[in-house]
């Protein structure tokens, strides 16, 4: 049955589709834009901006919020009828670029040099900068002011390095408070790898470098925190994610991204907390960036018009409007000062842009990293060397495909 269903999609793609270039149409375009919205606010903001552009330029734009963008796009691409423009998450970017679904338009944008280097790297595949980063978020350290004071700690005690984090956490633990709640995924623990000077893949994304001494040092450090009760996973304190534990005042510190601001303001208004850059490791500071780009389909009939649309969506003004609507940071270096004037408290998040690293940028990494996540859930009792060997094996296999 499923085999039949799988190929039923195929006859639909027979015609007009020999793999050659798609004939381009000039003039007024009907663009379809598939977005994976973070919520009602984002859908409204993007739709409004798109309609405004369409009206000014004489095109029509349909913004489609996706239920499950990976599967909707997969089906649309196999059916050879993809939307013209769609969100591409940095974690899946290489998958789309590797199969040739994306038009590498970003290197030709006038503002190409204005995007943060870390974000450009996140959307670069085989030395080509494919798509324009929409916006981004980074990880930072959140500190609960009330619990911090109860442990007798002051502003000067906010940890700046790994040793400082252990010291501060020990003092918080001494008064019976959970020092740090941390999500048990690579999306958090990966920052420690970066701070130790490691990363699962080489810079060009072609080799696995998971079982390095640096990565091992990072896992052993986090394992030490977990074993000594200085850090806990959200499940261990009966919460769904670290932000919930932090909001409920169950922990003095957590490590989350920009989204925690909106979540705390909505669910736990009145919580007094401060945001700081992540403590630096032996190899210096490091944080993870989370970003999405405006992908343009390689099979779109309106590529020129789609590039125009993306340019309009990524200007400093448009990005600042999106920032006000749903709390993301503009991807342009030139928008930095304007953003900080409006959101001075986000300085630690934005500072991370200088030393952040995106998700592992290589094809076929989705299930490799989710397998590593399930390993990380058992980090307190597992052997970091064994975990990293398994990760090394899986990444090597995925890169060879």
């Amino acid at each position: 049955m499923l085999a039949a269903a799988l190929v039923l999609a195929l006859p639909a793609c027979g015609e007009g589709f020999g793999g050659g270039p798609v004939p381009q149409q000039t003039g007024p375009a009907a663009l379809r834009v598939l977005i994976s919205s973070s919520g009602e606010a984002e859908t409204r903001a993007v739709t409004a901006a798109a309609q405004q552009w369409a009206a000014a330029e004489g095109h029509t734009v349909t913004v489609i919020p996706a239920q499950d963008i990976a599967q909707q796009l997969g089906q649309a691409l196999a059916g050879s009828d993809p939307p013209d423009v769609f969100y591409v998450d940095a974690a899946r970017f290489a998958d789309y670029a590797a199969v040739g679904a994306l038009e590498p338009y970003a290197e030709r944008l006038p503002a190409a040099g204005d995007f943060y280097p870390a974000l450009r790297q996140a959307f670069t595949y085989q030395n080509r900068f494919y798509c324009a980063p929409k916006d981004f978020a980074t990880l930072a350290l959140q500190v609960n002011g009330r619990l911090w004071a109860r442990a007798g700690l002051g502003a000067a005690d906010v940890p700046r390095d790994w040793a400082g984090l252990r010291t501060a956490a020990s003092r918080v633990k001494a008064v019976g408070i959970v020092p740090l709640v941390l999500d048990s995924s690579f999306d958090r623990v990966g920052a420690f790898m970066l701070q130790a000077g490691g990363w699962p893949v080489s810079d060009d994304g072609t080799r696995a470098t998971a079982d390095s001494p640096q990565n091992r040092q990072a896992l052993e450090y986090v394992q030490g925190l977990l074993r000594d009760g200085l850090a806990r996973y959200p499940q261990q304190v009966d919460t769904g994610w670290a932000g919930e534990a932090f909001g409920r005042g169950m922990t003095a510190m957590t490590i989350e991204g920009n989204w925690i601001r909106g979540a705390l303001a909505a669910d736990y208004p009145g919580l007094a907390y401060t945001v700081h850059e992540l403590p630096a490791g032996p190899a210096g500071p490091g944080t993870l960036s989370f970003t999405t780009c405006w992908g343009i389909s390689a099979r779109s009939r309106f590529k020129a018009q789609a590039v125009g649309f993306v340019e309009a969506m990524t200007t400093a003004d448009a990005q600042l409007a999106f920032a006000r609507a749903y709390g993301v940071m503009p991807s342009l270096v030139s928008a930095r000062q304007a953003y900080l004037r409006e959101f001075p408290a986000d300085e630690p998040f934005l500072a991370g842009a200088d030393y952040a690293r995106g998700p592992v940028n290589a094809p076929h990494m989705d299930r490799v990293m989710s397998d590593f996540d399930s390993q990380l859930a058992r980090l307190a009792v597992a052997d970091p060397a064994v975990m990293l060997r398994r990760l090394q094996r899986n990444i090597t296999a995925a890169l060879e495909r």
Partner: protein
Amino acid sequence: MGRGGVRRPEAVAGWLFVAPMVAVLGVFLLLPIGMALWVSLTGWNGQGSPFQPGVPFVGARNYTQLFLQEGLTRDHFMISIRNNLYYVAAAVPAQTVLALGLALVVDRRWLRGRTFFRSAYYFPSVTSSVAISVVFLFLFANSGAVNALLAYLGIDGPQWFADPRGLIHLALGGLGLADPDAPPAALADHGLFGLSWWEWLAGPSVAMTTIIMLVVWTTAGTFMLIFLAALQDVPPQLREAALVDGANAWQRLRHVTLPMLRPALFLVVTLGLIGTWQVFDQIYVMSQGAPANTTLTPAYLSYRTAFGDFEYGTGAAISFVLFLIIVASTLLQRWLMRERDGSAPRRRWWQRMRRTS
């Protein structure tokens, strides 16, 4: 052509009459299956047609990496096979017995409101499986109705959809036979197809158990209807004859009714086997394979591998292996339930063993 010319017009007419059906079957069944078979032998990535030049032909590699090549593809495939094996082993007997029981009850002439019960039991089968899945999500939520009921009885209910622990592991741990955190080395250090014996013996996870309950509940109604139709075909004279012979209720069921139901039983078990091996929509709606891959099934894995990871060849290969598994299990079942020759007294193998020893 040895056949005479007299019959030839009839043969032509015959082919003409069946031509529309042959065309429909060919275009919508044989052709897509052939195309899928081709895809399963290629490294097609979902861009453009799989038949254009440049699509890499990889031979049997998509199949060998499911069985022979160490890696995540094989790990996930074997986990999905294990999950589905337990799922079939639990769901098929449960739904068959439940359906037969319900059919026997609503077949009774003395039962008042029979029509009501027949409709009530059939109701879950006519409701959309997506809607029922969502209802079950609410029922089995951590603070849902099921856990509230268990709490009322003084039982601390599990986190149904977040609990990856296998039932056999739990039972072994509960009886003190093995420690799930430190499994016996004999089982943990050896295995088959990259999965240790300890992993193979996990049993359905708590999360999978809820999906089994849901499927048993929704399918029992349909199968009850099949059994009911067969029951009403059993000639009343047979039962009366058995009554005259002094057979009690159990003997009448075991030696008169059940043998008469054999064709219906075969149908129900066959449909059950096929349906449970193909389970997809409940998984898609309720768990997407989580927690810890314990609700991953080959049908869902095939879909995810193809449309999620753009590995259409591997996805198609998984669905062909699944097809072979279904054919094999149906043939096995057919052989087990075959009509034996009536001349010799039928004996079970264990009865034969006892006699020879």
